[in-house]
């Protein structure tokens, strides 16, 4: 197998004095699509932002490495990072409409980003390149979109523009942080379909962050399930969806399961709350909410138990 396009090792990130990401590791191989799922506050988004060090001001990486192209992104300075950002690793964000500069026309913004990465080789050339990447996203009237300001676009159109911008440099890896949040269901499916198609056509790897395990399962080759700052289970999508090993993954799949039960008011939930990350966690972080936890779970950190197809589950009872 070829060298991974991204290799995260022992990553720990804090916000304020709370450790939100508590030592995670995973690899993404060229062209592979990896999804991270988890509930709000599980650290999945922070993990994604840590890769390009796009962290909130009060957040910091405590420990660990993010290897990409033979370099550790954690140790690069801002200007070295700028040459990675948007070049070999691109990122798209949750709220597409807010991720566009409100005072610049779309055509101008796309051209600007292309100019940054090509070093400005002729205005006409860049503009035609911008048009080309926008056409590639299936936008209905590219001329009108290029002349529009961000507030004139719908959420779905804005996300298509962002995808076009992010992939314009043909990156090796695209990080998508909940790219369909705020879009309605039918547009979600379109945007995800587009994302998958475009990533496939340029041969890029994808790191998709989502709270929706079904969406991730649809698109990704592998799934990492995060809980309280740890990857509690990672494996091939089919294995995770059909034969989950970790109790949290099982519970998550039950919640996501049958949407018809919601109408009967019997939506399954996971009782309890995620642990308080401002205090150190002894043992397994899921122990308090777990149906099969024992005394061992509360006192000893769980081991990483390997399974089939390079899968891992972090539990005493698998």
């Amino acid at each position: 197998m070829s060298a991974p396009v991204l290799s995260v090792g022992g990553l720990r990130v804090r916000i304020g004095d709370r450790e939100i990401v508590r030592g995670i590791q995973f690899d993404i191989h060229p062209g592979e699509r990896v999804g991270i799922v988890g509930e709000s506050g599980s650290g999945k988004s922070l993990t994604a932002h840590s890769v390009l060090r796009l962290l909130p001001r009060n957040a910091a990486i405590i420990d660990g490495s993010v290897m990409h192209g033979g370099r550790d992104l954690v140790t690069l300075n801002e200007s070295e990072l700028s040459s990675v950002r948007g070049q070999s690793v691109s990122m798209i964000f949750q709220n597409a409409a807010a991720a566009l500069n409100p005072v610049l026309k779309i055509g101008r913004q796309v051209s600007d980003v292309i100019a940054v990465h090509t070093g400005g080789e002729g205005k006409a050339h860049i503009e035609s390149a911008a048009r080309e990447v926008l056409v590639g996203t299936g936008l209905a009237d590219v001329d009108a979109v290029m002349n529009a300001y961000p507030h004139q676009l719908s959420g779905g159109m804005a996300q298509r523009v962002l995808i076009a911008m992010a992939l314009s440099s043909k990156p090796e890896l695209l990080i998508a942080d909940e790219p369909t949040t705020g879009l309605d269901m039918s547009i979600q499916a379109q945007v995800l379909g587009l994302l998958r198609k475009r990533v496939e056509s340029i041969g890029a790897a994808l790191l998709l962050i989502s709270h929706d395990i079904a969406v991730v399962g649809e698109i990704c080759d592998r799934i990492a399930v995060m809980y309280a700052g740890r990857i509690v289970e990672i494996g091939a999508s089919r294995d995770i969806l059909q034969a989950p090993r970790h109790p949290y993954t099982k519970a998550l799949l039950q919640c996501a399961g049958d949407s018809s039960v919601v109408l009967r008011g019997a939506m399954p939930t996971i009782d309890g709350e995620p642990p308080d990350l401002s205090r150190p966690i002894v043992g397994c972080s899921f122990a308090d909410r777990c149906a099969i936890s024992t005394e061992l779970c509360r006192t000893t950190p769980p081991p990483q138990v390997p399974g089939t197809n390079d899968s891992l589950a972090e539990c005493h009872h698998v």
Partner: protein
Amino acid sequence: MRMTIPRFPSARSDQFTGKQPRSNGILLRSVIGLGVLVAVGLLAPFLGFADPLAPNLSAQLSPPSFEHLLGTDSLGRDILSRSVHAITVDLSLALIGVLCGAIIGAVLGATAAFGGRSADMVLPRFAESVQAFPQVLFGMALIAIAGGGVGSLIAIIAVVNVPVYLMMVRAAALPLRTADFTEAARGAGVPRLKIVVKYVLPNAMIPVFSQFPLSCTYSIQLIAGLSFIGVGVEPPTPEWGTMIKEGASYIVNGVWWPSVVPGLMLVLTTIALSSLSSGLRRTLLKQGTLG
């Protein structure tokens, strides 16, 4: 075929009040008013007014008549001509001064927002101490040190306006530092300086547009005020404040025109400029772009 892109109402629009957005009459009226004022001021030398500087000792303090529509001053100079010629003097001094102040203020404001903790401590304190100092007193002090003249007046206007724009741009830029689109630009590898110049400043400048005419209003009043107490524009240059002062001593004798006419010009200009400011603010608010 061109498709029109649907415009989605922004959160700040009138959708919450349920009112239809009205056309912005105040903006239109103030632009027309100012346009006429500026046009008359610029064209004054060609409109056949009397020489604003030529004394006529046989017609001192003559009341409004067919020959001198708004009368003459104590040296027999035509009040109408002087008041009209003063438009460009007052407006251009204020405009240049405020422009300098706004540019310096915007740069310092951006520096405060992006220059790190110490810059954000020092610059706002500097702005506050300038604002705490009485403007007229500051003007008199600077003129006492550096001497009078156009240059000093512009410098005074610039300095008193710097804090306004410094604080305004800083306040607008601070939330933009972490706005989604600046983070997205960082994520796309756009260099830091370019993010400040192209992504943050243009968005932080929006409140500046409506503040600008208002600052001109205050500045014209400051210029006229300094001239009134004799430290501003020097005679015989036609300027409203100087004219008001020259005529002030005759008002008690019923000779009102040498002071009242330039006073009215000052009032009209002030109304036009502050209307422009509130018209701009309403328009920008309606578009949901004013921070």
